[in-house]
């Protein structure tokens, strides 16, 4: 497992300097680390977080939005009718709840359909792993700058140390 501070440091090294989002238990460790570093702005809905990140980008920041995959549903219209058409990039750090059907019932449908949903939305995505983290983040940086659209990094349970190890 990757330590939260190592992951946050890697994101900062990549240039990410505006973090917002809505929490998920799988992202708890990352958010705690961001709060310690005073880098996190709490949002009340995922579409709001995505729109705030878009504003921050236009004002010179490199933004990331943390969310549970249910938040992709909530922010779908903002991602499509703001980020995609205005070319406003953003790093989406999305926890993959419902992966392989092992989760509470409310997560199962989104857990199964999320990769196809992202493909349909034409949002490039990768699944983070400890072994490939450096390469995953390099890919994020390149895709972000080249395509200028949201890029999703999917985070499964057990990849990054959380509040409840």
């Amino acid at each position: 497992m990757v330590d939260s501070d190592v992951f946050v440091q890697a994101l900062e090294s990549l240039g990410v300097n505006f973090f917002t989002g809505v929490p998920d238990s799988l992202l708890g460790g990352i958010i705690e680390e961001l709060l310690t570093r005073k880098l996190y702005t709490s949002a009340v809905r995922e579409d709001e977080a995505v729109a705030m990140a878009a504003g921050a980008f236009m004002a010179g920041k490199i933004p990331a939005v943390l969310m549970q995959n249910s938040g992709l549903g909530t922010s779908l219209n903002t991602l499509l009718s703001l980020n995609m058409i205005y070319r406003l990039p953003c790093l989406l750090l999305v926890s993959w709840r419902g992966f392989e059907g092992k989760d509470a019932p409310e997560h199962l449908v989104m857990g199964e359909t999320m990769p196809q949903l992202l493909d349909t939305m034409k949002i490039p995505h990768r699944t983070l792993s400890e072994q490939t983290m450096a390469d995953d983040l390099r890919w994020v940086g390149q895709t972000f700058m080249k395509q200028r659209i949201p890029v999703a990094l999917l985070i499964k349970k057990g990849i990054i140390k959380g509040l409840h190890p």
Partner: protein
Amino acid sequence: MRPEQGTMQSRAQAMAALLEVLTDQPVIICNGFPSREAQKLADRPTHFYMIGSMGNAAAIGLGVALSKPSKKVIVFDGDGNVLMGMGTLATVGALRPKNFVHVVFDNEVYGSTGNQPTISNVVQLEKVAKAAGYVAVERVLDREDLVYEFKDMLKNDGPSMLLVKVNEFVEDAGRIALEPPAITARFMKSIE
């Protein structure tokens, strides 16, 4: 027709009065006719015209305001938009960005889709903003009060909300001329 409507300005008249006061401040303008009217009245590089993502105007403005604390950031919003993204009033109220001025043109209808009623005739949005933690809120009807309060909000620390009651008149204003990526590029350059 509402009883006080005869005395009210149109949104375009109110917007024109505010645009006369503004110079190089970033302005985020919500989707629908407000953006089209702003473009017609005064097309400036500092204008970010939304054409989609209804409900997100204040959140976009908040992102700009937090990242550019030296600039007063203005949001031109509508009652339908504020109601859709009402949670953002809470986020603004909690974060209290001093440089955030939220103007709401309240015509009590979804004007871009055929004047279906909103619920802002019952829910007073500036009171919601005040309860959420906005430092200053005002509700105005006529042009004189509008300009006076707006100048005050530009001068003082916010976040503040200026709610202006307007009638349902919609200006004959064409679609946004620039392609969205060009709006982004122009806006970013103008607020560097």
